């Protein structure tokens, strides 16, 4: 299983100026929202969230933000070009409760989008906050509307929707709603803010963490988190609140390729 399969890019969707979704034919039977793939461009390999799981057409989508040399190289690819994929990896989101709030920040909307589609297939009532720095970077607005959801959009600069951070918007929305659960993926600073809110309100929540990964198969130890030691690639990337409480580095720091800590 832990071997990349070289496969053609079926189509590419330009989501925003910096984010593209790459669609592949892939057996979706055992894929859960929140899981990730290791993406190999024959030079380097990085973990990327699955943003689309389409069991009817047996397709998956991987949404990638252009942030560095690897993602820039992937962004330059065209339909029919090839990438190596292995996965799915990790533990995904669980769908629990009948009224759920999902919050995605930036490209963190990728796994949230897959989760929302799955929750709608199961007819779960779900609200979505989609957050970005600015209007042009809001992800999956049209896709959400097509699944009969009116997303609560917010932007840091106020260019669209609520002006401010996802946490601030969440505080406003949550006042008169009675959510059974919250799921989130995005910058860790945002998720730490959401964690503090759900802890205070005692709402169960799931968080998708990102850490530097090498093997993806649970042996290299690069993605282990303090102080509990769990591997984000196997025990995560999705953790429940009671598990997050044991991850002391959450919201504080993460490690780079050599293992040196960097503040979040």
């Amino acid at each position: 299983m832990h071997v990349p399969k070289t496969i053609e890019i079926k189509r590419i969707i330009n989501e925003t100026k910096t984010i593209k979704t790459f669609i592949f034919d892939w057996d979706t039977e055992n894929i859960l929202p929140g899981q990730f793939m290791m993406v190999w461009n024959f030079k380097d390999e990085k973990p990327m969230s699955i943003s689309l799981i389409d069991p009817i057409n047996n397709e998956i989508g991987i949404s990638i933000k252009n942030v560095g040399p690897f993602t820039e190289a992937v962004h330059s690819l065209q339909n029919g070009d090839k990438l190596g994929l292995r996965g799915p990896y990790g533990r995904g989101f669980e769908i629990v409760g009948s009224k759920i709030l999902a919050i995605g920040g930036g490209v963190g909307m990728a796994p949230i989008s897959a989760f929302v589609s799955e929750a709608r297939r199961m007819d779960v009532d779900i609200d979505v906050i989609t957050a970005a720095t600015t209007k042009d970077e809001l992800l999956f607005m049209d896709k959400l509307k097509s699944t009969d959801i009116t997303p609560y959009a917010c932007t840091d600069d106020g260019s669209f929707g609520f002006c401010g951070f996802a946490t601030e918007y969440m505080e406003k929305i949550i006042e008169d709603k009675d959510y059974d659960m919250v799921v989130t993926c995005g910058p860790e600073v945002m998720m730490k803010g959401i964690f503090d809110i759900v802890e205070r309100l005692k709402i169960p929540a799931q968080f998708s963490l990102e850490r530097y990964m090498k093997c993806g198969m649970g042996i290299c130890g690069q993605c282990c988190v303090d102080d509990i030691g769990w591997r984000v690639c196997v025990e995560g990337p999705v953790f429940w609140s009671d598990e997050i409480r044991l991850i002391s580095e959450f919201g504080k720091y993460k490690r780079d390729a050599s293992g040196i800590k960097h503040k979040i």
Partner: protein
Amino acid sequence: MLEVEICNIKMRNPTMLAAGILGSTASSLNWVLRSGAGSVVTKSFGLEPNKGYANPTTVEVTGGVINAIGLSNPGVDAFIGELEKIEESNNVIASIYGSSASEFSEIASKIENLVDAVELNVSCPHAQKGCGASIGEDPKFTGEIVKAVKKTVDTPVIVKLTPNVTDIVEIALSAEKAGCDALTLINSVGPGMRIDIDSGNPILSNKFGGLSGPAVKPIALRCVFDVYDAVHVPLIGVGGITDYRDAIEFMFAGARCVQIGTAIMYKGPSIFKEVNDGINKFMNKNKYQSIEEMVGIAHKQ
């Protein structure tokens, strides 16, 4: 019944975490100890921070994995911070690497008060030039490094050997003569490679990597068997151990304790408890009173 002692390290059971698997942080080492390992070996670290190779650094093959992580580590000074956070009363062995006797000695002296032993990595098959197996393939160079480290520190010195040599016994004897306290056999085999036939690319960014997992077990077992006959220092067996039967085989070949690495990919850290429970049952069934009784049995047949 499972207790065993190796170079003054009293272990509650004979299973250890192998170097290079998890072990980059106190958190993962503590997790493995809590999961039942008798002791743990850290991921190898050197004097300076090292990013290792670009991904892909690992790929599965039939019967195991090939890896070329490239000895990534934050350097000894940052690693000291991790070693200080290891839960007390547990057994921790530091795997260290370098390119010269003085480098090994400097690292060992910086950490000797924080660990129960050092394991010299002179056997990594994909290390940068001058490190790893390029040392361990040379009996004289291996001996020089062991001698220097022994002269520098009081903590026990274990040497991890490469199987990728014409005569592993020659290297083992040289390490023993230089004063090592125990030997770990074996590091990963090869290097080997894997090529993606759809794109024509070698999969690992380093092209080659060390083979570990069940596929290497017969080689590891033979190395332990061979070296047991030749040396007097205790042996630690490692290579493809995935269940208690594998562990018993290594003991019968001459290993006093065993390290587990790649099998964590299949079973997670709970493998330590599983293997220990299996050894315990096996000993009860076959009326062994201690681990020592089982060591080297295959030589007496």
